[in-house]
């Protein structure tokens, strides 16, 4: 069947189930029911601290076919996921569903575990590196389910994604399971992605390398959610943990894109007191933040909040008084962690508070401007951030679809061509975020505005900015690169791209 974006999706997918086709960004809004959580009550005599991962797996009765979860706040420096899965493999357990909020290059050991049948299903928001490439080659017998950050929280809270055991890497934990990410040698800052897991999983285990005296302070994840605590030598490599932010781009083309983006934001009239803003951690996105900072300082503008994964660049803006508060779902670097530690105005938001469409109002609903990237954009402004130019998975929505849906102004910043390929195509290989959520595309050679946004078109007409139809921009690119060959795909579905509301927006088919 075709969903409304013209993507061909089966009505039923083996290993996924019945497909609810995507029908529009807020078409599934309405009455929602949260799942019941079954738990083992803990009495004063019960002790939570266990001796090692082995004992943990005994106590939680880890068995074939269970679903285990992990957060990705330790990023490519995380040790916990690999450690726990190795221990599970050692016990001869099979058919585990791995619900990790993201997977990175350092999760390469998973490939062997998949080949050995230990892991037979993956649910994630983002994957990169060898595991992503192997998944794209069809190493799993069932498709990966790719969520957005908000959508994962939705799935967990609603019960669509049932977690048997949540393993929460805890930079600091006391012996009763009060966790925070602020202190310890593996400090990572806000633990936004672990909250839904802690609140809804059947069993929750804090895995820490910093066991402190009871009670720890502050408490980000409360003892009332945690069953067991286990201490290990190290939960992660600090260098890998705090390396989430890239540098502001030095590339003149990237800087030009950033300047043009700033001009677009100003022209829309949204850059004013009480504005809210979110940008990514990549080079051009940070350059946009730098341009915005210049403008805000020149005009004495104070925003209400900046949100997202927080980088040192946003912290600088916050410290200079340009935003009253920060909403932080994850800290990308040491500066962000230090800011989070030092002031209550740098606030944690859980993934649910960030972008779950099925609660009483996520932060993205209040967002004025978001700056995002793309690997491909098509004539309908649909954006792909899941697969790359070879059709293989190289990322995933993360917060892309969530912020795009909520923000008043969604701007995609990208070079018009990357390597020899145009970013603007007739039809994206995969839709991650639907075109109706995307307002403006800014490239170094021109700016395209979604025809739905006649208000923005009117405002930008009054400027000297190079506004052109998206078709024209594509032609400019193709004049330089030639028309790219379409990626050849097989019929085998290797991933299901679930929109934040649980509907299926697209599927990833294995490249030939």
């Amino acid at each position, binding site marked *: 069947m075709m969903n409304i974006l013209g993507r061909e999706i089966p009505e039923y997918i083996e290993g996924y189930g019945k497909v609810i086709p995507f029908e529009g960004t807020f078409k599934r809004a309405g009455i929602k029911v949260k799942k019941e959580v079954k738990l083992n009550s803990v009495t004063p005599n019960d002790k939570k601290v266990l001796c090692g991962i082995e004992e943990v797996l005994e106590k939680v009765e880890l068995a074939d076919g269970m679903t285990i979860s992990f957060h990705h706040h330790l990023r490519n420096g995380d040790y916990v996921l690999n450690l726990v899965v190795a221990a599970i493999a050692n016990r001869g357990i099979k058919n585990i569903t791995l619900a990790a909020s993201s997977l990175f290059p350092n999760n390469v050991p998973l490939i062997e575990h998949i080949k050995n049948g230990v892991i037979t299903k993956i649910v994630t928001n983002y994957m990169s590196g060898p595991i992503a490439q192997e998944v794209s080659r069809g190493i799993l017998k069932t498709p990966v389910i790719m969520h957005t950050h908000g959508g994962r929280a939705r799935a967990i809270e609603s019960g669509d994604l049932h977690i048997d055991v949540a393993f929460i890497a805890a930079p600091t934990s006391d012996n009763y399971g009060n966790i925070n990410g602020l202190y310890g040698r593996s400090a990572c800052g806000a633990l936004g992605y672990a909250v839904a897991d802690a609140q809804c999983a059947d069993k929750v285990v804090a895995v820490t390398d910093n066991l402190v005296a009871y009670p720890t302070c502050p408490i980000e994840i409360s003892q009332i959610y945690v069953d067991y605590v286990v201490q290990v030598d190290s939960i992660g490599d600090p260098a890998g943990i705090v390396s989430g932010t890239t540098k502001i781009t030095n590339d*003149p*083309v990237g*800087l*030009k894109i950033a300047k043009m983006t700033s001009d677009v934001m100003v022209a829309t009239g949204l850059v004013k007191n009480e504005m809210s803003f979110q940008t990514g951690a990549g080079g051009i996105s940070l350059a946009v933040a730098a341009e915005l900072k210049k403008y805000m300082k020149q005009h004495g503008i104070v925003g209400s909040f900046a949100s997202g994964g927080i980088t040192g660049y946003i912290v600088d803006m916050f410290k200079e008084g340009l935003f009253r508060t920060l909403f932080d779902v994850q800290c990308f670097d040491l500066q962000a962690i230090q800011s989070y530690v030092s002031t209550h105005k740098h606030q944690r938001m859980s993934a649910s508070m960030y972008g779950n469409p099925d609660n009483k109002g996520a932060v993205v609903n209040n967002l004025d401007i978001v700056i995002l990237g793309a690997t491909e954009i098509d004539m309908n402004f649909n954006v792909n951030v899941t697969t790359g130019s070879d059709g293989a998975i190289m990322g995933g929505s993360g917060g892309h679809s969530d912020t795009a849906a909520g923000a008043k102004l969604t701007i995609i910043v990208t070079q018009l061509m990357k390597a020899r390929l145009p970013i603007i195509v007739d039809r994206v290989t995969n839709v991650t975020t639907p075109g109706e959520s995307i307002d403006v595309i800014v490239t*170094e*050679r021109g700016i395209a505005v979604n025809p739905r946004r006649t208000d923005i078109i009117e405002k930008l007409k009054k400027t*000297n900015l190079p506004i052109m139809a998206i078709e024209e921009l594509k032609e*400019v690119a193709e*004049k*330089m690169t030639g028309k790219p060959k379409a990626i050849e795909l097989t019929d085998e579905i290797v991933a299901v791209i679930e929109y934040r509301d649980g509907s299926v927006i697209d599927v990833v088919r294995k490249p030939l």
Partner: protein
Amino acid sequence: MPGNNPGMLQNAGILGADSIILDLEDAVSLTEKDSARILVREALKNVEYGNVEVVVRVNPFNSEFAKVDIDEIARVKPNALMIPKATEEELIAIDKMLINIESEEGFDAGSIKLIPIVETAYGLENVYSIIKSCDRIVAVLLGGEDLTSDLGIVRTKEGGEILYARNKVAVACRAMKVDSIDTPFTDTNDFEGLEIDTRKAKSLGFTGKAAISPKHIDTIQYVFAPSEAEIKHARRVLEAMEEAESEGKGVFSLDGKMVDAPIINRAKNTVELARLLGLI
């Protein structure tokens, strides 16, 4: 920018400069001269540079590369060729080459312009006659690094050692009604220094400045662009002039000061420049 860098050739036109100089000379090593020539030739054929003026700096006329540079590049119609260490004789010889090429290719006669670089003591002393030697010349670039090297003196940020050179080039260009392009500021990250250096050049009468980094473009354009106050004043002068003319007055004053021809000319130039820059 170096002509053997395809990425730069592709993006040169969108970085905000009024002219781009695609280089076959000093930015290109000896072993890359042919690659650079081929890439620049192909770039001129295939890349849309829009309204940006495309200038190609060829190798010095007495080098083994110059004639093939000129022959191949002129045939793909750059806006201008930039000639290092140009002498009057060389410019005349190049002019003859271009006349033939333009005729063979069916281009308008004289359509390919020339920009000599003044970067030797000889070039500096003879700048007026160098400009006079050929009708194709539309501008002169002052090459501060090579000039100071030729003079055996130290090149400094403050530029005191090139004051005479700047004065002379700016005046000669004005006399011959061609553009004068100041030598680039070589510290890529010192924007304050760049602004000071650019203001110096402007104050001596230069009409433009070369940049060796796209990061310098904004500052240079900002300095050369008339300020809001200057534009406002220029418009007031022109309005007062129109009013005076309609009242049959030949001479008039504004804000208590007499306005005569030089002031009116400056006002006209300012308004014209502001229009060109899209400031009004």
